[in-house]
């Protein structure tokens, strides 16, 4: 089972510049563990003390995983995971 993971600019030094990579796992946590095997160091940039870092947002099919089941959120073949840093955004 492969899930597409979109990588933000700030982490692409770990993915040889790739904007999107694929990983496997039944949950988001497993997917991140798998990604870390393929792209060493990415796990530590996403997680701290076994939780998502404060300024890292992860979306499963555009929904924030913090409102799903966090790292236990099930992921499936064909899902898209998007990783983004938390920013102040555009025009307020």
């Amino acid at each position, binding site marked *: 089972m492969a899930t597409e993971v979109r990588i*933000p*600019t*700030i982490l692409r030094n770990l993915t040889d510049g790739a904007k999107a990579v694929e990983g496997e796992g039944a949950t988001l946590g497993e997917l991140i563990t798998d990604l870390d095997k393929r792209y060493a160091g990415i796990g530590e*940039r996403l997680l701290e003390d076994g939780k998502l*870092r*404060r*300024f*890292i*947002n992860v*979306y499963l099919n*555009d*929904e*924030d995983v*913090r*409102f799903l089941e966090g790292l236990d959120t099930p992921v499936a073949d064909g899902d898209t995971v*998007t990783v*983004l*840093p*938390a*920013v*102040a*955004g*555009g*025009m*307020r």
Partner: protein
Amino acid sequence: MRFDSLLGSLGRTPLVGLPNLSPSPRVRLWAKLEDRNPTGSIKDRAAFYMVEQAEKDGRLSHGCTILEPTSGNTGISLAMVAKLRGYRMVCVMPENTSAERKQLLEMWGAEIHFSPAEGGSNEAVRVAKEMAAQHPDWVMLYQYGNPDNARAHYETTGPELLADLPEITHFVAGLGTTGTLMGVGRYLREQRPEVQIVAAEPRYGELVYGLRNIDEGFIPELYDESVLTTRFSVPSDAALKRTRELLTMEGIFAGISTGGALHAALGVAQKAVKAGERADIAFVIADAGWKYLSTGAYEGTLEEAEERLEGQLWA
């Protein structure tokens, strides 16, 4: 309706049904027309309320300088009220902001201090905080952390929604400073504990996420995750498509961030349809489309418009 002056006409905006976009008579969408505020956006509520409270507690008095990191509607609202009340207004905004915004701000006498485009509003917030430290006599109302921003919505937008739609099941709005969602969300949860509060967060081009490191990330001080039911990231192509649909199917000419809120609202509506549940979903028309005409969002094909929007700050 008659008011003593323009500022008195703030709020009490219409809530209109969307008969063509609503999936069924049991699952209905409602739009709150916040473009019908004095300067044309929902930000008038927060800006006027923050100024009023600062005057009441003595932080602001005639001749003061107001400083705010803003490239958009909050700056326009503050510039207008500052002009009427005799304050000097300094805005800090990213240099890649549209010409209309710059003109609108200058029209009401605001002075503009540009921050680097790289990093978007993060950078504007950082620069404004530095300037505030250098000028301790200036007053930074600071929309991202001022509880009066959320309070304005708790006291006005929330009660207006409930009065017009007592059967409300969902409230959907764009997530920026988070003031609208926090204020309306808290009020509705007190009155209707079962209500769902849904955030639509704009997903921009890569420039906006161009931080040097993750620790430079930013979460508005006002943000309280526990108020929300869920949060969606809406890509610009979806926001644009929905903005067009609102125009062609319901006749509403809205800004692009509203398309993002509509996208999330339609997602929630589809879920209700599938579950066979009744739903009355209110969402916010944050502003009208005028300020975005130069982005090319409303002309040509959707694909052309998407291309033009790439790299621009659209909400």
